[in-house]
């Protein structure tokens, strides 16, 4: 326990790097995921195929492989990107299909009669989507999106684990190696910081989802 308190600044530093990875990786994934979701419902068939293939490939590739590509292979190709940026890109690329799926499941949750009604009133594609479907889908996408972000929080540990970025997991590993006699306390300290993010988000997601299920 003393080790944890003595190294609290280190923990907080690691925690801030984790939050940074989460924020930037999450923002990138949100943008990329929205684009993919839009491509998947677009009338142009090539775009639909590309988005589906991308989703299928990334969702069946382990995150470790993606992170290693950004951390080991890309430098061989001659990139001078700092590792933390490479980690953020890996997280964004990996998380984007999950975001797209969450958005799509929200859109699928809107009853088809809504779109039919809008169409029968003479709304075009843009009007139907932006005025009728998306406002209703938005509420239903929030719990799945929170879920994706919880997974992302846990996934940031892989970026540290591969060994180039000193975020929460990296800090924990360094401390555990340095203080062999207090490994349990150190690792529980690390777990605590992860739980601070994931557990409240999880409770929030279930709460919102429950409200939505009851309303339905």
């Amino acid at each position, binding site marked *: 326990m003393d080790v944890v308190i003595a190294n609290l600044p280190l923990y907080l530093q690691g925690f801030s790097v984790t939050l940074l990875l989460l924020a930037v990786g999450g923002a990138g994934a949100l943008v990329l995921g929205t684009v993919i979701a839009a491509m998947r419902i677009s009338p142009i068939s090539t775009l639909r195929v590309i988005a589906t293939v991308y989703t299928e490939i990334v969702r069946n590739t*382990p995150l470790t492989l993606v992170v290693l*590509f950004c951390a080991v292979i890309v430098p061989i190709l001659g990139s001078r990107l700092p590792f933390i940026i490479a980690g953020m890109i890996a997280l964004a690329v990996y998380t984007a299909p999950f975001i797209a799926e*969450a958005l799509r499941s929200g859109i699928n949750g809107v009853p088809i009669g809504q779109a039919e009604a809008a169409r029968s009133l003479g709304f075009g*594609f843009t009007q139907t989507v932006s005025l009728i479907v998306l406002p209703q889908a938005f509420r239903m996408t929030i719990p799945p999106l929170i879920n*994706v972000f*919880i997974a992302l929080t846990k996934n940031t540990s*892989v970026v540290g684990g591969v060994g180039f970025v000193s975020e929460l997991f990296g800090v924990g590993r360094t401390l555990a190696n340095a203080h062999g006699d207090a490994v349990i306390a150190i690792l529980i300290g690390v777990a605590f910081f992860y*739980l601070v993010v994931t557990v409240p988000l999880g409770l929030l997601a279930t709460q919102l989802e429950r409200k939505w299920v009851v309303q339905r």
Partner: protein
Amino acid sequence: MSNASVLFDAPGPRARRLSRILSVVTAVLVVAGLGWVIVTLNTPRESGGITLPGMFDPSRWDIVLDPEMWGFIIGVGVWGTLRAAAVAAVLAIAIGIVLSLLRSSEIAWIRVPTAVLIEFFRGMPVLLMMLFILLVAGTGQYWAVVSALAIYNGALIGEALRAGLVALPRGQREAALSVGMRPLQSKMLVEFPQAFRQMLPIIVAQLVVLLKDTSLAYIVGYPELLRVTLNNLGSYYGNRYLFTLWCIAFVLYLAMNLSLSWFARWLAKRTDRRFHPAKAAPEPDEDPNQALLVADATAAAREAEGRRP
């Protein structure tokens, strides 16, 4: 909204032509982009006075013909991955069953601590759990990987099964009790088998995630596919072959995961047909996380309904 065609007009000849042109244009752009990537990868580079061959140069790919390398990759790498995944999957299902039964116990002293435990395991990165077991329990890498995966996925499967138990029609339990079964008998013989069958798609989808997560074992040093290719063979053949080895690992992972996901999808469709034969099968939620969220919320709503007088 699963049928997106209601969103836009049935295309007339002009719109059809436009859409076809745009399709072709994007296809050309994508092919050109891929071609550009391949050409860029394949151009030899100057580095410190030495010219490095391009990424698709035969001198980087000659190991593909080495049968000994394939023997090592399949015999040690793929076998290591599958062995860890299979044992972890069996243990995870067992842990999940136990946790779900404890979690839905009538006795608060059992139910509440189990719920806290499940939340704790669900909120932690698997990687951290692997490191914890490796350093604290000193079990060696194989069991650290297997038990961390088993505990983490067991907690998720347990939560799914509990949601399945709660979501069953109440009549099932009432009927079992009214024919003289004890509560435990009703749970084990009547409710649990139904819940398990309903939640089977979620469980199998979670096992796909488990197979993917075995790659985390790379970080704690267990010799699975990724460590065998990138580390062991990478240092044996030299850095020159890293890209080749990465590609091999990528293709092997895709092959394993895709076949398991297809199985999961087929199973979900089949289960759905059996339980709702009249309804046209909706697209099953492939992400176990999302499916679990919906199941959990349905269970919570059902519980709240039951409490209301």
